[in-house]
């Protein structure tokens, strides 16, 4: 790397500008969350943790956090099982039709979520799934599948198909091969997919706005309502918590990848 080309001043400046553009909106909520005022603003006289105290002491906020967490866990489970099985199936069969299926699985991240949400609203009304935990978990689970399909397919692309042949040649059934050979090899891909599916559900708003109203009130939904109704700095505190949590998940993903590549 000693003799690699160094970027010129213009390129450096542009790169920094993009980085700052990406980071500033996230970092701005940190001082706002520490404000000593009663409305959304920068701290005037002193830093204060009172809004964090409000959030962590409020049954509504805690309930929403808990609900979001449960929904994210349930939808991650759905996305991981369905996405992994789909990716393995497509990989094993590996025909033209499976390419199509894999592309189809990516639809939830290609189609605007508002279009998806309208469709779900129509169907869920008939199935009595509106404003239900199961409904939201299903919707988030299905829209989380693409993340798992992508990461697991990537892991499978690096999987040596001869390992599967070797296992079967030694008498292993399909399920033994899956449990003892394929899954352990692609576990890092599955974990990555799970983390992304979790984050997807954790901060999803548009679908929730359509298919949930009173009983299911996720964290993003409460932030949204809070911004519409009053400008309580508690939202900034929640936003910081949200960012920190997501950041931790991404760091976990990074650490797992590092360990796998080591």
């Amino acid at each position, binding site marked *: 790397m000693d003799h690699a080309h160094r970027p010129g001043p213009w390129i450096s400046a542009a790169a920094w500008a993009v980085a700052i553009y990406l980071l500033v909106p996230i970092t701005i909520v940190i001082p706002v969350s520490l404000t000593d005022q009663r409305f959304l603003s920068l701290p005037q006289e002193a830093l204060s943790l009172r809004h964090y105290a409000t959030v962590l002491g409020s049954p509504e906020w805690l309930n929403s956090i808990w609900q979001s967490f449960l929904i994210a866990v349930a939808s991650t489970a759905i996305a991981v099982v369905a996405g992994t099985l789909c990716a393995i199936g497509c990989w094993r069969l590996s025909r033209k039709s499976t390419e199509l299926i894999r592309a189809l699985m990516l639809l939830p991240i290609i189609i605007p979520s508002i279009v998806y949400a309208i469709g779900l609203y129509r169907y869920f009304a008939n199935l009595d799934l509106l404003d239900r935990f199961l409904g939201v978990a299903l919707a988030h689970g299905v829209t989380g599948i693409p993340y798992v399909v992508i990461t697991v397919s990537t892991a499978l692309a690096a999987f040596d198909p*001869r390992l599967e042949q070797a296992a079967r040649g*030694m008498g292993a059934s399909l399920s033994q091969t899956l449990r*003892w050979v394929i899954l352990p090899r692609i576990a890092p891909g599955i974990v990555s997919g799970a983390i992304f599916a979790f984050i997807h559900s954790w901060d999803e708003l548009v679908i929730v706005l359509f298919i949930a109203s009173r009983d299911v009130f996720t964290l993003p939904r409460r932030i949204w309502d809070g911004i519409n109704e009053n400008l309580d700095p508690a939202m900034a505190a929640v936003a910081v918590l949200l960012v920190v949590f997501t950041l931790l998940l991404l760091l976990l993903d990074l650490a797992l990848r590092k360990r796998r590549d080591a």
Partner: protein
Amino acid sequence: MSGTGHALALQGLTKCYGSFTAVADVSLRVERGEFLTLLGPSGSGKTTILMCIAGFVAPTAGAILLDGKDITPLPPERRDFGMVFQGYALFPHMTVAENVAFPLRVRKLSAADREAKVRAALDLVQLQGFAERLPRQLSGGQQQRVALARALVFDPALLLLDEPLSALDKKLRAELQEELKALHRRIGRTFVNVTHDQEEALSLSDRVAILNHGKLIQEGAPAHLYEQPRTRFVADFLGKSNFLQGEVRESVPGGFVIGAGATRIVQAVAENHRPAHGSRVLLSLRPEKITLMSEQDEADNIVEGRIAAWSYLGAGFGLNVETPDFGLLRVALPTWRAPIAPREGLAVRLGWSAAASVPVMEDAA
């Protein structure tokens, strides 16, 4: 690791991929305890045949019989064959012991039985003390031995080897060839090996089957194939060969004479294989069967030429001798008995006996 091997028979094995025929009507027997090698260039169908035997590829037509029983429809996991894959296909997330124990775990053996068998298998390939290592902590040769132990640990009916030595450097390859041969002698199992390396095929096998373009060209013991190649392809692929083309001019006792230009070549032949007078024949002549003659020396066949190029190969000289009627002839000369110091343009007399060369068929297109 006791017991005798099993016999395998291929009957009219054919595999087509669309309009491409990878294996065309191959019939072959592998006797109990025999070491058979499928030898051919890449694309000859040898690996497809092995994959059919292993059960990973379903033949388009034909049958595979184990001890007379048709196993063609059985999936690979029900065939009980051990296999050493190209590149070994060791499970990277398992230790050596776990890799070798895998077929036993699949068969639900008790932990104690598993341990005893794994130890015996690792002893067999001289890898005691490596049980807890991961495959990536082993050298290529050691990985190859783990693959062998894993393929043999469950007393398979048959051991299949897919280019088992191709990933190793030359010296190690020779070493493992000897070990593999000794192992085969020791355990007396039936081995089917696939390779494109003719030296490996000659030194390891009891019998070699030569394939080209999906067809079985010739099979037999290594020495038989080398001495009596049936076609130009076999003579050319197994070792090196010169080819002499000419027209049958006359019959002599025990042989016939061909003419090419002004040169007459005497060729020995069995009485029932005499070619028709006037027909064109092709002779295969191994470079090491040609000797350099002095002016007084006599031989059945003498051809004069000039050295066009030569190289020093340690144990021998390789000469390319330009001749008026046969073009370039390759001559292999043992260094320590070489009667001349080779140099370009030197005139030489080449001689060989009527039995040194062998008539071969031109390859079918």
